[in-house]
């Protein structure tokens, strides 16, 4: 049962990701990407990590995508705005991506799993409680840094996108 769910979700993920990349219209791309993110959230649910899935949807599908869409609308781009890449460049892109995929999969396939059969030991490792403890004990310093990063990027974004005032 879950296998089927996995395969369907995988298909959706890959398909929408691909459509995101190839769609002519940037708005369509964005919408496909949102679907892709939801599918990924589904994968997280399959792992039984509900908190992560929720956060993922909030951050990606909510915050980031909204930001992207706002920008798109702000720019009001047409399909024609994007000049055509030469055929050679496109072929090269396909070829490179193919090579990369080949190598990646070949490399990952080579890896032998430690234990073939996965056994759930029943230890709680991904509830909010556990994650919160880990985040604020073991990873406290990076956590704080992440907050500073976000603050800085916020200020930076405001500064950069502000219209330059002639002095």
């Amino acid at each position, binding site marked *: 049962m879950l296998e089927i769910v996995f395969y369907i979700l995988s298909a959706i993920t890959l398909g929408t990701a691909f459509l995101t990349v190839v769609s002519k219209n940037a708005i369509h791309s964005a919408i496909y990407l949102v679907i892709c993110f939801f599918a990924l959230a589904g994968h997280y649910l399959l792992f039984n990590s509900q908190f992560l899935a929720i956060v*993922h949807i909030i951050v990606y599908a909510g915050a980031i995508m909204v930001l992207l869409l706002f920008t798109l609308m702000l720019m009001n781009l047409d399909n024609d705005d994007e000049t055509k890449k030469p055929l050679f460049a496109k072929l090269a892109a396909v070829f490179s991506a193919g090579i990369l995929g080949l190598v990646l*999969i070949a490399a990952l396939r080579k890896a032998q799993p430690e234990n073939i059969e996965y056994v759930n030991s029943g230890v709680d490792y991904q509830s909010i409680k556990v994650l919160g403890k880990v985040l604020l004990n073991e990873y406290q310093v990076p956590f704080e840094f992440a907050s500073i990063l976000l603050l800085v990027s916020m200020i930076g974004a405001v500064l950069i996108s502000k219209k330059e005032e002639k002095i």
Partner: protein
Amino acid sequence: MNILEHVGIENYLTLSALLFCIGAFGLLYRRNAIIMFMSIEIMLNAVNLLLVAFSSYHEDPSGQVFVFFTMAVAAAEVAVGLAILVSVFRNIGNIDIDNLKNLKG
């Protein structure tokens, strides 16, 4: 209930590799900077997916913590990146990366 009881980890490896490739492909294929951002997001998510998969596999919360950090970084990146794009667009009227060649040696 855990998906790994039904589907082997190697499937996730393949999935995330493919997803990563699609992102990379988009990065090379498109010239629209916003689409390229999206491609980058896809690549980041491919990695996130793998992190989560291994976090489950080893029953270790660290992987998921890392995903949180990735998300934070991604959010910061998008915010600043889009801000740059907006100001570029305001200056030259489009966001075609082929037009941004001022940094040549």
